[in-house]
């Protein structure tokens, strides 16, 4: 990735510029401000708020992984292997949420 000519980073065959990093940083700050504004004004019910905040967090993480961590510019097989495996493992943990919900309605069956 050494590039003596100027302000570019190369990963794979694609180059990233300093301006691109600034735009990503500004986008991340703007999304954060939106999140804080939503929490301050409490415009949604908690369930809806959770969904909105999760979507915004996923957008932010995609920007960080894609541009700051350069994964967008890595080889296809590396991108797919990393993202599919981490998403699959994290999704497996969600199985337990059904049990968390069940606790709220759990009753004693008696004998």
């Amino acid at each position, binding site marked *: 990735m*050494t590039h003596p000519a100027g302000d570019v980073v190369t990963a794979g065959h694609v180059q990233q510029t*300093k301006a691109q990093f600034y735009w990503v940083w500004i986008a991340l700050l703007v999304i954060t401000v939106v999140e804080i504004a939503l929490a301050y004004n409490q415009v949604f019910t908690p369930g809806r708020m959770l969904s909105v905040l999760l979507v915004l967090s996923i957008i932010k993480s995609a920007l960080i992984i894609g541009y700051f961590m350069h994964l967008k510019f890595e080889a296809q097989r590396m991108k797919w292997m990393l993202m599919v495996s981490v998403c699959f493992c994290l999704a497996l943990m969600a199985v337990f949420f059904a049990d*968390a919900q069940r*606790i709220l309605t759990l009753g004693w069956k008696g004998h």
Partner: protein
Amino acid sequence: MADAVVVHPGAEAYEPSWFRTYSKKIGMWLFLLSDSLTFGALLFAYSYNRLSTPGWPTPFHVESIRNASIMTGFLLTSSLTMVLAVLASSRGDRAWTRNWLLATMAFGAGFVLLHAAEWNKLIGEGLRWPLFQTLFDLQPGTNPEYVAATRNFPQFGGTFFALTGMHMLHVTIGIIYLGAVALRKMWLPILGVLAILCWWAPGPFHYGFYVLLFGLAICAIVLLLKPMDYTDHDIEVSGLYWHFVDLVWMFIFPLVYLMSTRISS
């Protein structure tokens, strides 16, 4: 047996990596993959408890949210300075690589200081992990809301402090890592002085002593036994770690702080 010289072939003698990149980067990505599951488990534990506990406390008011927002700004800006360090290293500019790395460490240190100060305030006012009460001789809390939250919902303190503590530890390790890359052997005495300062520091800052001492031992082993000049690859790999701790905070901040906000009181 005749004297023989074993000649190791250069990297060009081997086939290119299946992932079209160098092994250090693949190693760091695999580590981050496993670490994401650690944080995933802690976030799921927090969410599980929240979902299964009616009347979950919402202890974060305007002051906490303002503090956490500044911390988020620090981490996001530190990610920008980190990519600028990677950029500078890619064009062989050693001075600016070091400057941007030091800026990244400064923003990271700001994050840790704000976070530890917040912990100090919460613990002092009575929001605690029950384990703290067992381990340390703590005075009774001064805020009835927090004291009630700790008494009635011990799982809140347990999951909150475990999750944010693990993240704070990762940021601290990141600062130590970047310090070793940016300053090499010069970093060792600085780290030693910081550890000594932590020994006399109040509240949770005191326990930073043990983290910094452990970091000092690891850095000393690495820097003294295998001194080397870090390349642009090393800077990029350290950047991956740093962006990961930023990435994790992008989930902790909304899920733990913003979802537990009560602005009106």
